[in-house]
């Protein structure tokens, strides 16, 4: 599956099938700091992702003040 990441913007290829929480763990990303979007839909950590899925992992942290 194609996984789009930010900070910096890049795309990585990850082999499926795989649950969202397994994908985040594999990429060493903390659940609390990210949303996972499949196509246009937000998905929960137990959602199964397959080869061919378009995935965006969006960071949610902001602010410098």
């Amino acid at each position: 599956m194609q996984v789009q990441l930010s900070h910096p913007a890049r795309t990585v290829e990850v082999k499926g099938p795989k649950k969202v929480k397994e994908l985040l763990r594999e990429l060493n990303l903390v659940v609390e700091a990210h949303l996972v979007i499949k196509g246009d839909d937000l998905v929960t950590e137990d959602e199964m992702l397959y080869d061919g899925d378009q995935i965006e992992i969006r960071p949610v942290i902001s602010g410098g003040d």
Partner: protein
Amino acid sequence: MNCTKCKTKAVIGLPRHNAAFCKGCFNGFVHDQVARAIKSEKMFGKEDRILVAVSGGKDSLALWDILLKLGYRTDALYVNLGIGAYSEQSHAKVTKFADAVAASHGATLHLHTVEQEAGAGIKELAQLIHRPTCSTCGTIKRYQFNRVAIEQDYDVMATGHNLDDEAARLLGNVLHWQEEYLDKQGPSLPASVEGFAKKVKPLYRLSERELAAYAVLNRIDYIVEECPMAKGSKMLQYKEVLNRLETESPGTKQTFYWGFLEKQSKKQPTATTMTEKDRAVLHPCTSCSQPTTAEVCSYCKMMLRAKTVVPR
């Protein structure tokens, strides 16, 4: 994972509440948390005029959206900081939301452009006065926000600070034992002296992840990129640490910040204490009349320096 309330397919799990929600029930949860914050902290009523500070980010646009949907009379102020493409993109996001959503509620978007007044963007200004960019940005935004609120007779100004922002700030203050800042960490700060508007943070019960989810689910187009000036900031480091703790032990952030608020409320009536302290040290700036501890406020000093150094 199914929605805790209606049992249909969930779109988000909330470990700190031991719950999961579908889109409809999640929107209900978010609106309910904001309504609870407004009521419990006596932030404002339906008759009040509210000014929201919007940046183009998820929190402030979500706040504007939520307050309008809850039926509050809410306008917004955007401060264009002049950070190249980042400011252009964030300005475009705010304008898009104002036109597509806020206008139908009769809401107005105010605009302040730093470069128009100072002759330079935030980065150049910070270099000029030898202060960190985030601190300079904070001074400008607080000043302009207060100015517009006072000049345009808003009853209260609201910011998009969320649970993560407040927990991270508290962690920073505690790590450095900056006890003098703790009085101002509450989600509702009174208009302590003439010239200061009341300030509230209606999102303090919601996490950054929950607000990002609200924006995504409600198709609020916000700027995902981090502000280039904030890279490596202490606040981001504190948030990262807290999120690692939260993932291992859900509820850590709310226990930390809400627990602090509970202890503060039992200690002393915070509003009175802060008001008394402010009245003792603040007086009108000789240049602009906004309250300050010095003869001339830090904003006017900054503008004076900018006008003498920056070629117009």
